[in-house]
C-alpha cells in the first residue's frame, strides 16, 4: 500500500518533469498541518500551470504525464496512489500569492509546500461552504493565524466586511 509521502513525491516529480511549476497544498490537507483534523476527501494543489495560455488551460500535458505514470485522470482529479488530487491553477492573483508565500513543512522527512493559514482562510472564504467555515474555526482555535496579516489579506481581496461580521464580532481577534 502506498503512503501519503509517495503522493507528495509524485507531485514533486510532476514539477521536476515540467508539467507543473511551483505548487503548494491547500484545502483540508493544508489545514491539517496547522490545526486539528477536519474531514477532506481530496487533495487540493495550487500550482503554476505552464500549459495555461490566458484564459485557456490545456490539460493534455497533465493527463499525458498522469497516464504515463499509471495515475488515472478522473473528471477534474488525478488519482495518485488512490488519492484524488485536484490541480488548481495558481498563475496569478490570490492563488499565485498563496503559493509564493507557502511554508515548507515536514512530512515524514519530506519537505512539503503548504499554503499559510492566513491565505488558507482567504481562499476558504472565497470558495465558501460549511466545511470550509469549520476549517477557519479550527485554524483560529489552534492559534495558527496571524490576525494582522489576515486582516491585510481580507482588505486586499475585498473580504474585510465578511470577516468582521462573521468572526471579529465573536471576539476571535
Amino acid at each position, binding site marked *: *500500500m*502506498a*503512503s*501519503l509521502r*509517495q*503522493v507528495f513525491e509524485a507531485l514533486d516529480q510532476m514539477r521536476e518533469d515540467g508539467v507543473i511549476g511551483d505548487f503548494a497544498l491547500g484545502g483540508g490537507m493544508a489545514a*491539517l*498541518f*496547522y*490545526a*486539528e*483534523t477536519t*474531514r*477532506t*476527501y*481530496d487533495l487540493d494543489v495550487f500550482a503554476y500551470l505552464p500549459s495555461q495560455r490566458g484564459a485557456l488551460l490545456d490539460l493534455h500535458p497533465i493527463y499525458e504525464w498522469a497516464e504515463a505514470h499509471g495515475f488515472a485522470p*478522473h473528471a477534474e*482529479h488525478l488519482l495518485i*496512489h*488512490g*488519492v*484524488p488530487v485536484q490541480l488548481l491553477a495558481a498563475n496569478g492573483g490570490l492563488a499565485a500569492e498563496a503559493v509564493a508565500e507557502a511554508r515548507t*513543512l*515536514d*512530512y*515524514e522527512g519530506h519537505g512539503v509546500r503548504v499554503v499559510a493559514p492566513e491565505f488558507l482562510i482567504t481562499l476558504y472564504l472565497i470558495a465558501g461552504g460549511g466545511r470550509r467555515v469549520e476549517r477557519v474555526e*479550527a485554524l483560529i*482555535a*489552534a492559534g*495558527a493565524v496571524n490576525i494582522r496579516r489576515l486582516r491585510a489579506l481580507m482588505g486586499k481581496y475585498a473580504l474585510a466586511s465578511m470577516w468582521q461580521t462573521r468572526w471579529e464580532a465573536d471576539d476571535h481577534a
Partner: protein
Amino acid sequence: MPDDVDAYEAKRRWHEEQARLPIKEKVRILLELQRQDYELLKRHRTLEWWELPWDIEP
C-alpha cells in the same frame, strides 16, 4: 454552572491537544474518519467516486 464551565474547558483543552498532534497522527485520524463516513453514507445514497476512503497509509 461550575460543572458546565469545567466541561467547556475540558473540551477546549481536548481540541488544543488534537491540533498539536503530529501530522502523521492527524492523517491517520483523517483516514479513519473517511472510513467511518463511508460506512454511514453508503447506506443512504450512492457515493461519488471521490468520496471513497483513501487506500493509503499515513
